[in-house]
């Protein structure tokens, strides 16, 4: 996060736009939108200095529902767009948001490499264990035996992708799991993530009530398994070994070097021409 421009008069509400979400009634993503706007209000960030970047999917519709700068990009490429923006404009607070398909399937490579680069931005994945937007196919986090999609009538047949584990293995410096049903907690995590100087990853379990209606029941399964935060990556990974997938909390946090482009100076273009003169 960068310098805080105090804008004391803004409430969470002021960070919401007047655009009507296309989301189904009851979708978990509404709560994520709430938490983001609450976090921005709490941090008193000026709207013009914040940008929310996304890919494509139900969850990726989120930028237009905020009143800050936004970019609804293309499927799987939210992180490159967000990283390009942050590198070019380090003064802007950059949030990146999207779905489990967007982030871990088509966008999986950017996810790993963004974790490695550790550029100062916050990546929120609304994990509903399904492709909502395309009407209910398996995503990387879907159970191997989930048989509700016509595309994989016998189930996807592949063990679920482990977002936190991959994030840690790839080098993410701030790793969180949250639940959209706990907005307060999520808000707090988003605030912390924005404040963290490096790449923060928040996996938000966010029910798709239409294609994974059984997810409504998750509110009784989630628990504070990660209530304490490791600052040691190895220790955090050890803790993941006992994770049931529903532990919530800041699993890992550590201030580590962030990718910085070459040292810069301030010459003029004409200076560069000299190298060509015979």
């Amino acid at each position: 996060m960068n310098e805080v421009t105090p804008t004391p008069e803004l409430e969470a509400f002021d960070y919401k736009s007047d655009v009507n979400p296309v989301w189904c009634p009851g979708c978990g993503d509404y709560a994520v939108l709430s938490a983001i706007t609450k976090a921005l209000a709490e941090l008193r960030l000026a709207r013009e200095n914040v940008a929310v970047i996304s890919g494509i999917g139900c969850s990726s519709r989120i930028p237009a529902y905020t009143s800050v700068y936004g970019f609804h990009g293309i499927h799987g490429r939210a992180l490159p767009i967000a990283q390009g923006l942050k590198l070019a404009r380090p003064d802007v607070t950059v949030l990146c948001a999207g779905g489990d398909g967007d982030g871990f399937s088509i966008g999986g490579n950017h996810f790993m490499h963004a974790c490695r680069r550790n550029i100062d931005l916050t990546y929120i994945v609304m994990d509903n264990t399904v492709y909502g937007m395309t009407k209910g196919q398996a995503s990387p986090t879907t159970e191997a035996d989930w048989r509700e999609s016509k595309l994989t009538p016998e189930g996807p047949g592949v063990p679920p992708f482990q977002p936190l584990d991959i994030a840690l293995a790839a080098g993410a410096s701030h790793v969180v799991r949250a639940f959209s049903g706990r907005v307060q907690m999520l808000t707090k995590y988003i605030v912390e993530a924005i404040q963290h100087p490096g790449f923060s990853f928040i996996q938000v379990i966010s029910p798709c009530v239409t294609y994974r209606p059984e997810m409504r029941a998750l509110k009784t399964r989630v628990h504070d398994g990660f209530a304490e935060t490791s600052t040691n990556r190895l220790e955090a990974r050890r803790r993941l070994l006992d994770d049931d997938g529903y532990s919530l909390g800041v699993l890992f946090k550590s201030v580590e070097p962030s990718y910085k482009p070459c040292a810069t100076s301030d010459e003029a273009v004409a200076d560069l021409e000299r190298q060509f003169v015979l």
Partner: protein
Amino acid sequence: MTEHLLSLALTGSGGAGVMTVGQILLDAAAHAGWYGLMRRSLGPQIRGGESAALMRFGSRPILSHGDTFDVLFAFDWGNITRFAAELPLRSDSVVLYDPDAGEVPEVIARSNARCVAVPLTATVKSEPGLRANMIGLGLAAHILRLTPADLQPLLADFLGDKGEEALALSLRGIELGAGLADALPASTWPVCPRPAKSEKPRWSITGNEAAGLGAVKGGVRFVAAYPITPSTEILEWLAPNLARLGGQLVQAEDELASINMLVGASYGGVPSLTATSGPGLSLMIEGLGMSVGAEIPVTVIDVQRGGPSTGIPTKSEQSDFNIAVYGLHGDAPHIVVAATSIPDCMPTVQWAVSAAEAAQCPAIVLSDQNMGQSRAIIDPPAEGGPVAARRLAAPEDGTPYLRYALTNDGVSPMAVPGIAGGEYTADGLAHNERGTPSTQAADHQSQLDKRQRKLETLDCANFWAELEGDGPIAVIALGSLTEPAREAVRAANGAARLIGLRVVLPLQAEAMAKALAGATKVLVVEQNHSAQFHHFLRGHYDLPPVVDSLHRAGPLPLRPLEILAAINALKGDA
């Protein structure tokens, strides 16, 4: 072509060091007042392997390779069959060769060129520590009437910190080489008077370096890139030079990442560019489409190589024309320009960047291996822009900001983060003026119209093409073939005119009509197998009734005499 020029090919297998020889020779010639050009032709090996330095010198700027080589100097014959087709000779050409490297092979001998043995290996063995390439350098320099004294000042640079002894040995080699040349009858050498020294400073630059310079001149301060032959040198030039300007280059995990990083940076207000070649461009297609739909300027330089697929990474072709022009899905108007020569890479990239900024859309610059990796001695090129800066929004209190406002010229003032009141969400979904997604026909239509309009209103002035002559046969050449075509047009003595098209998109209907006025026939010249440019011109322009196409896949470049022959054939046509 009758003009007084000199062309020279140096060949040799890995370790022979012909590239170094070529490089020093070019520099020395430049200091002596020559303009010149050097192209490299390399074997498939990663390191070493056979190679050729294909050079041409002249007293006036040399921007194209000629038809044949006056002199071929073969340090050895390693894998010469792989190169022979790239080394056209005449019966009055001279072939210098080392008898210890074996007989002149049939592929060379059949040109009937005069073959002259020079005892390279024998000379190397004559004193300890000598290297063949330095002897060769001394010999080759003689062709240009350069003496060891002309070469000496450059040696230190090339040898780096190899020390005094190495320098002395090199100088000795050069002298011995010069001696070998002196020992040959004067009739061995093409006539080649030394030009006058230039008063104004000249540059030594490759097309790729010129492209990099054009980028920063166009205002580029962010580059994300993934290396690929033959474009990597643009990126390698940009990395340190951008840093000097306070800009930056980031190496991305792939081309999907690099194009999307550009979009992010440019959305943030920083002009952004990348360089790639065919396979990389293929991966950037979806990102470029987003740049069209969300109206975020980015520039991509495609240094073309042989295709399709991985093709021939190290050799030139102009076969990415189609993908550059038509490759995006949906109706996606954008800018495509083709640099016409090595120095032109600078203004063309500069212009493209600023045109993209002005029109808020992607610009693709077509270069090719032939320009990108060749080095020329040139007069510093004129600037190529800017068309206009990006039009930024100044949102007013009370009136909601419309990011995609329907304006007369199609350009909607753009807000970037930091501008209060300009908060909007950029979107690749069809949207209304505000940017909110819309599936309505009217919104879609009006935004499509607007995006088309901003290109139609883009002022390309005289930049759209290189024009010369007014003969009845219009030679329309693509990019790097402009200069060979110019040579042919000049040699056609009034029968032809040149249109070297720089701005491929947006279409230049009016300017083209003017340039074609009075022309009765057209010859389209391009370096690819399926006449892509020809079909494009037919499809989008009203051409005179007779249209002929001269096209060939790479890597053998189309040469001035071939173009002239096609002009003459057209002249003969009823």
